[in-house]
């Protein structure tokens, strides 16, 4: 048996932390009647203090609980209504946005807007203009007045079409 008696502070700690778990204290209490009696008194007092609360709550009139329940149910109704209001507002906002997008698309497709020339087509045209094979220089506006001479040169080179040669 442990001869050292435990102080109130140590007994208090034993009570709050885990009664029965502190082996040295519990062993001492089992053997020492004095300490065991002090521990019992301490336990009784602390339990008594806690019980005061429980009694106060148990003694509350039924009207207190009825009022509380009513307030809870009212709070739930208010929350539900608020939730419905918020979800309705969201639905209206979503519908308005959808109509705006759809309306915009329809208007965009209906109205005939002159389309700017696509950049790719412009580039292709430029390439064609610079390509000597693809473009006949004699057909240009600058050489239009010399068209007769062009025809004559073709004839003198003997590269005229077979129809002309046959006629000669």
């Amino acid at each position, binding site marked *: 048996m442990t001869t050292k008696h435990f102080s*109130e*502070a140590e*007994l*208090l700690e034993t009570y709050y932390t885990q009664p029965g778990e502190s082996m040295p204290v519990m062993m001492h209490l089992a053997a020492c009647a004095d300490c065991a009696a002090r521990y019992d008194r301490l336990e009784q007092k602390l339990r008594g203090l806690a019980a005061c609360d429980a009694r106060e709550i148990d003694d509350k009139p039924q009207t207190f609980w009825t009022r509380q329940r009513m307030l809870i149910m009212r709070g739930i109704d208010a*929350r539900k209504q608020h939730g419905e209001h918020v979800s309705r507002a969201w639905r209206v906002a979503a519908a308005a946005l959808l109509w705006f997008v759809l309306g915009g698309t329809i208007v965009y497709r209906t109205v005939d807007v002159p389309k700017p020339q696509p950049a790719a087509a412009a580039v292709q045209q430029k390439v064609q203009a610079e390509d000597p094979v693809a473009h006949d220089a004699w057909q240009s506006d600058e050489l239009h007045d010399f068209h007769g001479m062009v025809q004559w040169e073709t004839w003198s080179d003997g590269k005229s079409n077979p129809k002309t040669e046959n006629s000669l």
Partner: protein
Amino acid sequence: MPIRVSQFNEAPADQELIARTLGGDGAAYGLLVDRFQRKIFRVAYAIVRDESEADTITQDTFIQAYTHLARFEGRSEFETWLTRIAINRSRDSLRRRKFISLFTGGDDDDERTMLFEPVDERPDPEREIMARQLRVAIERAEDKLSAQQKVIFRLRHYEERPLEEIAELLGLAAGTVRAHLFRAVHKIRKELAEWRVQHQGISDDDETLQ
């Protein structure tokens, strides 16, 4: 048609009431409120030590539980789930109170001094006074604790819940709860020792204050 077990009993099971509530039966939730409101109020009151605040916390707890009822998976008891919500709300309330007191410098010592008033009708008025003073001393000592320590100590002291249960309710390891409780009890011991020195003259025969 299969007969449900609850048809034989007067009180339907929590799960059944939850299912009915989710199905749109508001009265079913009223039954759940009626079943647990006292326990939830008691837990909230144990932590915040203020009746009006505990009332508000109880109401908020049930409203929040209703809002998130679909998320309740039934892994724990409905009561445990409600208690957790109530504890979280109570802890928030304690923190808010502490934050406000930083600016207002508020202290409700005056209110507590009232508790020293003796009640002579009791069979042993002196003991009754000692008990009241002890209560006040504990409440004063509690003021020195952090919000978390307060919650743990109060659940242990007023609700007499075992450490394992407190750990489960707070979502903490049992060792963490034990450490918090140790620190809390040490602070309380210190405060009570001071109180004993101050009030030793009142009752010399009462050795076990405590």
